């Protein structure tokens, strides 16, 4: 089936004219139409535009203009502004917003010939780890528990729709954003490769801002090589983003073939936490053995401030969010709820437009930045963040990459972990450090738990050394031989 191909295989098929870009896109649109009513992975499906782009791709192929993603159907997280296509951030406040411009990352993908199937669901403003906070409803994970087929599992979050779409084979790849784990955690929950590059590698221009110092655009794919193809296209230096890295984008596909012989791989002892399922610990040990067998040297290392990462994040991210989300005032775009005076209009608009988790984070962020509390909370968190970065820098003086589990659990069911915000926050325990430090990290599917649900391993690398992270990820992928398929997928 065309929907089962990897991006690399589809590129070859399009080039050899085994099938057309229109056929490839239509196969995916048929899958979307069949499965999206159940999965709710897409908020907006752009059928007509996708067919037009596919037709243009066939014309380009006919005249020999074949670019890295010509004719490849992708899903775009509904946090990337797409010109002329509604962009909601899964929030009522942007329900009818149609951007008059294209984000840099999606412009790069379009310039490389990609086809956009539509905009995928997410936690509102990317605030969440389950996709349960979306104003457009939850997303169903295409994987099912072997022993409990009736349970509806979450795909993780915040990029839950992107992950569900790629896992269900109704998109060949997708964009996501990762602020505390929002690409890697859903990748782990859905059996996918999720790439969070170094901070500054992918431009944030045109991406709806959550926490600017922590937001990282990156791709979802079904193979490490596909992740390399997508990141190579998404990454660029962008003068419109003042934190965009002005350095050449390496050949990530070549890096996938490097192997791990002679690499020093660190295993951070602080990632062994109480209450972690034995299956995850066992998979981690298996990953260590795979890398050792492939010629890597395993080194026990320490990141002593790991346990403070989440608390640091839950000051820094809400503080930045409270500032970034100040723009939603009902004046220039988005929802407006009238009031007698201007201040009433602001208050009414923001009370009606933001969901509970977004309001909660804006209030926390406003509090930790307010006079009298700034030093005790925000400044202290920034100092702990400096210590977390120092931990990574010290460890990376001695090792080339780190291997850890991606998440402390497999996918959970809708409704679980919903009563206590902190239980939900703990999902990002292993992923948040790479956001605070800005270093690259990839989650690779490495095995299944006893319920038949996918589990990921995370590889963390040095700043701007995605190449080594891809090399190690490719080795884990090769050794794991992960071939399991989700129960819900196109063509079933």
């Amino acid at each position, binding site marked *: 089936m065309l929907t089962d191909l990897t991006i690399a295989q589809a590129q070859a098929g399009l080039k050899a004219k085994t099938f057309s870009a229109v056929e490839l896109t239509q196969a995916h649109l048929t899958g979307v139409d069949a499965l999206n009513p159940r999965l709710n992975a897409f908020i907006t499906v752009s059928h007509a535009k996708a067919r037009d782009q596919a037709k243009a791709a066939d014309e380009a192929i006919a005249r020999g203009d074949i670019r890295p993603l010509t004719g490849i159907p992708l899903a775009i997280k509904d946090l990337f502004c797409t010109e002329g296509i509604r962009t909601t951030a899964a929030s009522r406040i942007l329900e*009818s*917003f*149609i951007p*008059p411009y294209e984000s840099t990352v999606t412009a790069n993908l379009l310039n490389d010939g990609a086809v956009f199937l539509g905009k995928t669901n997410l936690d509102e403003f990317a605030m969440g780890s389950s996709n349960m906070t979306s104003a457009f409803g939850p997303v169903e994970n295409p994987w099912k528990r072997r022993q409990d087929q009736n349970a509806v599992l979450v795909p993780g979050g915040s990029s839950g729709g992107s992950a569900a779409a790629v896992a269900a084979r109704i998109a060949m790849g997708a964009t996501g954003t990762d602020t505390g784990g929002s690409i890697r955690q859903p990748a782990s929950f859905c059996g996918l490769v999720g790439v969070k590059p170094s*901070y*500054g590698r992918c431009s944030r221009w045109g991406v709806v801002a959550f926490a600017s*110092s922590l937001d990282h655009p990156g791709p979802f794919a079904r193979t490490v090589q596909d992740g390399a193809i997508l990141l190579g296209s998404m990454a660029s230096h962008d*003068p419109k983003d*003042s*934190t965009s*890295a*002005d350095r050449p984008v390496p050949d990530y596909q070549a890096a996938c073939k490097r192997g791990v012989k002679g690499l020093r791989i660190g295993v951070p002892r602080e990632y062994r936490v109480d209450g972690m399922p034995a299956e995850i610990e066992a998979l981690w040990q298996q990953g260590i053995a795979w890398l050792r067998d492939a010629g890597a040297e395993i080194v026990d290392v320490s990141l002593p*401030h790991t*346990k*403070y990462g989440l*608390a640091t994040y*839950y*000051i820094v991210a809400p503080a930045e969010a*409270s500032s970034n989300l*100040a723009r939603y*005032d*009902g*004046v*220039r*775009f988005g*929802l*407006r709820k009238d*009031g007698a*005076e*201007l*201040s*009433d*209009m602001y*208050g009414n608009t*923001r*009370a009606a437009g933001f969901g509970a988790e977004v*309001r*909660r984070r*804006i*209030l*926390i962020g*406003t*509090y930790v930045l*307010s006079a009298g509390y700034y030093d005790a*909370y925000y*400044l*202290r*968190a*920034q*100092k*702990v*963040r*400096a*210590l977390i*970065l120092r931990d990574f820098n010290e460890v990376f003086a001695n090792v080339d990459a780190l291997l850890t589990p991606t998440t402390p659990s497999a996918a959970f069911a809708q409704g679980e972990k919903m009563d*206590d*915000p*902190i239980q939900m926050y703990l999902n990002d325990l292993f992923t948040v450090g790479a956001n605070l*430090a*800005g270093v690259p990290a990839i989650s690779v599917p490495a095995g299944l738990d006893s319920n038949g649900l996918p589990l990921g391993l995370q590889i963390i690398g040095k700043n701007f050394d995605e190449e080594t992270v891809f090399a190690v990820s490719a080795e884990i992928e090769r050794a794991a031989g992960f071939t399991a398929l989700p129960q819900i997928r196109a063509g079933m």
Partner: protein
Amino acid sequence: MALDPTTIRRIANLSRIRVEHDQLEPLSRELNGILGWIEQLNEVNVAGVEPLTGGAQMAMKMRDDVVTDGGYPEKILANAPDRNRQFFAVPKVVE
């Protein structure tokens, strides 16, 4: 309790989010739960540590102070909830 209902009302006002009276108590409980958990950062010795503002370990770039974009008011106003000619319209601010 760090965040009593009066403080919640004050930060809600700073945030420009209308909060109904009956939401103050539950919000206070929720936010105090989160802040109580965050208090663990007080264990960390941060003496002499410079605060880190972001992940970009690079110098901020300067750019020329020139206009490089603009001149399309219709695009800018296309999503406006209310407009008057080429302006955004809001409720009356000055009597």
